[in-house]
């Protein structure tokens, strides 16, 4: 198995030029793969998957009674991000996160941006993720979005676009680190020759970020809060707690006494200062949000409001994560920072707007329609691959609830070489870098490359048959 018959077709390929020759930066990798004895690449692929399985790096499949565990499929040919491109992405992501954080703070406080009519007030206040319980809140150090995983895609024009912001509980970082650990063993020579940026210090950066936003004096008690072992991302929660060496708690391990949050330990109650929570807003406090939540901690919001505990991310950040609000991010950046967005948005039609809605209904066949508050590839219509009944269904959904839908042109996602049954073939990918907002905004030089393993598929989500790849961000000197 090698690159001899590799065809980029008409897509932008991350590793190979249109003439079939590897991009110069990818040469050491392609050469190492081409020099392997036949079948060796497949053997390495299998060995990597087995390693993930044995380490229990698995997610549980929802709706499966036996609690079947699966590994997220991992492809051992890494995706490469040239150093000069990364420098721009890093700046663009810092800019975007800074502006979005200012936006969220403004929305829950003075609402200047609404008064100045830069973003329509009704659009914001009608968002399902706008939490009136957060009005007037000012989290420690003014930081709302401590941890972000922004989804980027590269179009056939060779440019990167932001697809989604994921400002609530983005997952996937554990795969970034574990993929790297396995990948380093797979192609050590190429890895060394290409000066790949390290990612293994993510845990340190995360811990620093969480410590920084503590309002307690002295050494803060930081914990990770998980919905529990049956959550599909449970592995990641244990991994992050382990990387930081902090307690991993479930809701029932915590209790609130006099507006202070405590852990129930073998030696009594122990105060908690910062909670990296992986439970959604709706479930975090049955006293304030969903009353039927068994996962959360009753009274935690009041403790938070009183400044006795810090939640990361802050509740209410979903308002900027609403896909209809996403359409306004370039204006948001301009408004708060006076700058143009460094990484462009994908053009987005907001069905809430009558004119745009009509355009969407008239062009369903060429657009991708998305529900504004769903993720994971759910609630989506990919126009060019849809059937007439599916389009009819979405047309009626949109008409019933225009506020809940947006549409975007179907992007031609870039592809990258991937191990398939018949050899190495191009598969579509996206890219999720991770950003931490503490004393500084830090962008981890790496990220999760998700790959749509099914031929021709554009859906990269793990719940829909997607896999992942290690992402090699090359040092600054390495130009495309």
């Amino acid at each position: 198995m090698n690159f001899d018959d590799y065809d980029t077709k008409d897509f932008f390929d991350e590793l190979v030029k249109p003439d079939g020759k590897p991009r110069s930066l990818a040469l050491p990798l392609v050469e190492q793969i081409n020099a392997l004895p036949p079948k060796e690449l497949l053997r390495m692929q299998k060995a990597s998957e087995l390693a993930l399985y044995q380490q229990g790096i698995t997610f549980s499949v929802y709706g499966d009674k036996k609690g079947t565990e699966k590994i997220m499929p991992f492809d051992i040919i890494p995706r490469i991000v040239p150093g000069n491109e990364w420098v721009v992405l890093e700046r663009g992501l810092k800019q975007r996160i800074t502006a979005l954080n200012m936006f969220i703070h403004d929305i829950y406080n003075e609402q200047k941006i609404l008064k100045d009519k830069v973003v329509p007030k009704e659009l914001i206040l009608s968002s399902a993720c706008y939490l009136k319980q957060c009005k007037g809140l000012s989290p420690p150090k003014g930081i709302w979005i401590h941890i972000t995983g922004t989804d980027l895609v590269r179009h056939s024009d060779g440019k990167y676009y932001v697809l989604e912001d994921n400002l609530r509980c983005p997952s996937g970082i554990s795969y970034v680190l574990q993929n790297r650990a396995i990948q380093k063993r797979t192609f050590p020579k190429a890895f060394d020759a290409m000066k790949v940026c390290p990612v293994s210090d993510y845990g340190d950066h995360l811990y620093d970020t969480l410590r920084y936003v503590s309002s307690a004096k002295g050494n803060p008690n930081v914990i990770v809060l998980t919905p529990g072992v049956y959550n599909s991302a449970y592995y990641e929660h244990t991994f992050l707690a382990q990387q930081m060496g902090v307690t991993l708690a479930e809701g029932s391990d915590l209790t609130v006494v006099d507006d202070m949050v405590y852990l129930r330990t073998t030696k009594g109650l122990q105060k908690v200062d910062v909670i990296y929570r992986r439970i959604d807003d709706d479930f975090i406090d049955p006293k304030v949000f969903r009353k039927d939540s068994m996962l959360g901690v009753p009274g935690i919001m009041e403790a938070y409001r009183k400044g006795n505990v810090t939640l990361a991310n802050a509740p209410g950040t979903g308002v900027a994560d609403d896909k209809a609000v996403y359409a306004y991010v370039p204006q948001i950046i301009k408004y708060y920072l006076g700058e143009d967005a460094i990484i462009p948005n994908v053009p987005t039609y907001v069905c809430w707007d009558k004119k745009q809605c009509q355009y969407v209904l008239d062009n369903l066949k060429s657009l991708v329609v998305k529900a504004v508050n769903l993720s994971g590839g759910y609630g989506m219509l990919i126009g060019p691959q849809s059937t007439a009944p599916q389009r009819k269904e979405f047309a009626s959904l949109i008409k019933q609830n225009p506020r809940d839908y947006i549409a975007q042109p179907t992007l031609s996602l870039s592809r990258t070489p991937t191990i398939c049954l018949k050899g190495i073939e191009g598969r579509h990918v996206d890219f999720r870098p991770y950003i931490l907002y503490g004393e500084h905004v830090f962008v981890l030089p790496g990220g999760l490359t998700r790959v749509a393993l099914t031929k021709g598929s554009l859906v990269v989500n793990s719940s829909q048959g997607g896999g992942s790849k290690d992402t090699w961000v090359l040092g600054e000197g390495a130009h495309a």
Partner: protein
Amino acid sequence: MLSRVASSIYWMSRYLERAENVARFIAVNVHLMLDLGLARADTQWEPLVITSGDGADFHKRYKEFTEKNVLHFLTFDEKNPNSIVSCINAARENARTVRESISSEMWEKINELYHHVQKHSKRKRVSDLESFYAYIRTASHLITGLSENTLSHDESWHFARLGRMLERADKTARILDVKYFLLLPKLEYVDSPYDAVEWGAVLKSANAFDMYRKCFHRIDYHDVAEFLIFSLEFPRAMAFCVRSAMKSLKAVTGENEAFVPAVKEMETLSKMLASTNVEKVLAAGLHEFIDVFQFNLNVVDQSIFRSFFDNTNQHVV
């Protein structure tokens, strides 16, 4: 540490120890039957179920104590909470909820053990299992070794040892009880070669054969009982287990000793062993002695639950 985590580590450790014991009982029994010959062999499967304390449960799903039934019940029967497959599932599930608290090495070994057992249990065949039982025992020893050498000997480690030692004390007591009951009344076997063979099997069930020989040289039920109950040097003897459990209990209790009832309950157990000897025990009845011992073990277990794992009504520290 979190009460929930302490509880999971304690149970992870207990279940592993339980699975290892079941695997060892079975393997020893298989060998024993080869020594005894077929005529006596078919009577030898019942004690295995009695030893694990699950006779009533067995009868719900099986008629006779045949080799096939007993092996299936003890190995792959998921409805039997004490079968190897159930114990390994429970150990792994507990480990999974605390994997950030144990070492990666430990977790990976437990995970590997789980997958191995799952693979075998799908085949549902009970013949040719010798290497399977050997694997279970080795894996358990390996995981205990990993906990010894890759965990800090802090609270987690002490809870793991506490669970392991209490489970082991219980199992050694059971082996002794059941075998003593079954072997002693058969006067025709006393001092016969079979007698030595069967008591040898008891020792092997507790991994104690070699170490016993160093102490007593000849196999004799009186000495076997003394060794398995009172040795403070042999790590599967009841007294040894109680002493180790006590050390760990005191370590997790720290200065709160006076307030933790489990310490007092454990002292009762220690005193019970210290205040008697094998002659007195055999004279008054081994079965009665073990009954009281196991009752006290349960009291300790419940007391540990109330002192450390039950997280209602806690005070702020």
